[in-house]
């Protein structure tokens, strides 16, 4: 794919929106030449980011805005990739506090950020002056996406 292309989705902070976003992400990843495994990783990371905005940024309120922008990019070694921006208008927290936990014991919770860190090549939380949180992430196709 040579030209950059970009798609923006504006959803409400409702868990019902998540499959719709997954459907869009899955198709875009396939268009950009992501293999099934990488496409799933991208989809999962975005899903976890949105679930966190719904649960933490908006404390479960289902009618708040979330904007997702997907942009095709070219990364190291000309590898195609997809850059993702997730913006909310919810609670601002210190990006340093957004961390996965150690996975030594078997319990629920604290898995989302670990998943994002594992499957994405880059991720970065920030607090834009306009309010809310901004998460930027990138995933490239091919090697270098090894889980672990």
């Amino acid at each position: 794919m040579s030209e950059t292309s970009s798609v923006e989705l504006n959803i409400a902070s409702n868990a019902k929106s998540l499959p719709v976003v997954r459907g869009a992400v899955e198709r875009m990843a396939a268009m950009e030449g992501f293999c099934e495994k990488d496409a799933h990783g991208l989809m999962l990371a975005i899903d976890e980011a949105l679930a966190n905005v719904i649960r933490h940024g908006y404390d479960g309120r289902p009618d708040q805005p979330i904007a997702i922008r997907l942009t095709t990019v070219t990364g190291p070694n000309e590898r195609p990739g997809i850059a993702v921006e997730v913006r909310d208008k919810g609670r601002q927290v210190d990006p340093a506090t957004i961390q996965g936990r150690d996975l030594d014991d078997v319990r629920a919770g604290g898995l989302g950020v670990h998943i994002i860190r594992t499957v994405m090549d880059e991720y970065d939380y920030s607090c834009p002056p306009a309010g809310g949180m901004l998460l930027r992430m990138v995933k490239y196709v091919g090697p270098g996406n090894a889980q672990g």
Partner: protein
Amino acid sequence: MAEKQNSLIKEIRRSDGATVVVLAGDVDLHHSPELHAELVELAGERPPRLLLDLAEVPYMDSSGVGTLVEVFRRVSSYKGKMVLFGLNDRVRSVFEITKLDRFFTICETEEQAAET
């Protein structure tokens, strides 16, 4: 909270030693709360073995594995056993990424799950 018409549980087969639960659909933040309630109820029957058939689960996120972790803890608390089988590559990878594959018994087929 729970939307009964939207249950992911497609089938429940109870026998003396085991309860087999067949799930169908994406286990994500939208469906996990109801699935959690339903599986906790089933765990309350204290089946010696709780087998989950995930062959028709195309997708699972961390709320899904989190739900299964909580059910696992309940089943373990009465010394029951919980086994997952039929996972596709995507679903299996979520257990791998979250390092929960160490805790769960994960089998390919129902036959193998029955023999664990």
